[in-house]
């Protein structure tokens, strides 16, 4: 029954795609993956390789009554953990002694496809690279090749049955892997349950957490003069930097796959000047017109530099 329902969803998804995407097989696989990641319950252990570091992680994603819950746990050293449900994201870093709890990004539009084939197609060439076997399952290989040097590429091995990503590679400008993830085992189906789910549900029964007060919606007095091709504004808001209370303007751009955040605020004592990196995530910071901007994302440093150096204060809305 569940399988039949899933197939119907896939059929419905394909029907919902624009004609150009429906005819585009690799893009259809990506759309299926996008939906499977959100709508299926699955659990498995996977390895995460970046540089000379290998991490083992455990992921449980469940959907109950249309509500998603996700828990990602490190199996090495301290049990670092990220829990996400529709109300909050909780990051627990026992070894760092830090926890962050934040209300989730609103799900506007998540009922529909969050992957926009047209936007992705502008920035990447999607290609089908044959089939094979990964994590003991049949897999279809799909590549997203960047159309310019402002973004990284992706190589994905998607489960032939469910379209879940069994293996992912983030590729640098030369096509070499920056980061790889690969499931070593994967269970899919409504029987997948998170033992923690019942615990949290019991602890939180009777009501969700109070919603955070809405963000202050103010016009942001900035113009991005040099937005790399394919990136579009997805979010702009005034907010406080988590953990410090510093008021910042936060702007997010996306090319349909990669996202870049730009945080703009008054200069601080620990501002990043120049480039920094952790794993595949780059950051670039610089002073801009009496303020300081830090850009961050899984994109090449030159892309972040383009966002920041193109930042101009807009005189007419200056306060």
């Amino acid at each position, binding site marked *: 029954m569940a399988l039949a329902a899933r197939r119907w969803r896939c059929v419905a998804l394909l029907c919902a795609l624009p004609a150009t995407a429906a005819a585009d097989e690799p893009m259809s696989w990506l759309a299926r993956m996008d939906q499977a990641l959100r709508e299926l319950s699955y659990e498995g252990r996977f390895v995460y390789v970046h540089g000379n570091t290998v991490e083992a992680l455990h992921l449980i994603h469940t959907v109950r009554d249309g509500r998603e819950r996700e828990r990602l746990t490190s199996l090495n050293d301290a049990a670092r953990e990220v829990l996400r449900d529709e109300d909050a994201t909780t990051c627990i870093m026992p070894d760092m002694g830090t926890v962050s709890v934040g209300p989730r990004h609103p799900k506007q539009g998540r009922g529909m496809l969050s992957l926009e084939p047209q936007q992705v197609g502008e920035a990447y060439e999607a290609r089908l690279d044959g089939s094979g076997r990964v994590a003991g399952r049949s897999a279809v290989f799909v590549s997203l090749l960047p159309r310019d040097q402002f973004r990284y590429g992706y190589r994905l091995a998607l489960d032939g049955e469910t379209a879940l990503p069994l293996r992912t590679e983030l590729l640098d*400008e030369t096509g070499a892997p920056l980061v790889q993830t690969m499931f070593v085992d994967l269970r899919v189906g409504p029987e997948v349950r998170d033992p923690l789910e019942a615990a949290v549900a019991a602890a939180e029964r009777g009501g969700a957490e109070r919603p955070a007060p809405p963000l202050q919606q103010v016009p942001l007095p900035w113009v991005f003069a040099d937005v790399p091709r394919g990136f579009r504004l997805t979010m702009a808001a005034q907010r406080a930097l988590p953990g410090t209370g510093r008021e910042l303007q936060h702007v997010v751009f996306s090319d349909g796959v990669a996202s870049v955040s730009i945080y703009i605020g008054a200069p601080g004592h620990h501002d990043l000047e120049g480039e920094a990196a952790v794993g595949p*995530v780059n950051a670039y910071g610089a002073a801009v017109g009496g303020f300081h901007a830090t850009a961050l994302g899984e994109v090449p440093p030159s892309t972040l530099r383009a966002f920041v150096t193109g930042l101009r204060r807009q005189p007419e809305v200056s306060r």
Partner: protein
Amino acid sequence: MSQKQDLEQLSALVDGALDERQRAQLLARLDEDDGLRARWGRYHLIGDALRGEPAVGAALDVAARVRDRLATEPVVLAPRRRALLPRPPAWVRPALGLAAAASLGAAVVVMMPRPQPPTGQPLASAAIPAPEVNKAEPAAQWTVVQQTPVTRWQARSPEAGRDLHRFLADHSEFAATGVKGAMPLATLVGYGAGR
């Protein structure tokens, strides 16, 4: 009572810092307020995880304690927590403005405001000229290459690294969607490993 005051009181309760009258008042509010009770349960889950206790087992146990003791004898919880956890440094509270975190020792609990959907801000963008196409040729086989072994921000000071980590945690919420799935979260979970 404001939400902030509620949270501070909640922290003080877990910390064993409320007097008898304040404790009784807050426990009564806990009994009535679903949202406050939900947050209380979540803080205890976090506390157990931070102390390195097995998350699932601890969570199940905590959930049972929350459920049972709220229904019967909730006052017992405060002294137990006090015995388990030392008081945090004084700077933790003002620095965070959310004293609930302080009950978790060195923990930092950060409440982020809810991000809003796109609102048509006056952000003009001018696309720069399209550079030459630089297509990465698909490799025939999966390969692992050795890159710079960076698992922590290479920042000039620990404080600068912490700021960048806050940016990373915040940004991951926006990045871990669509094609990328949980990959950005894996970066976050892997952060600090390999020390």
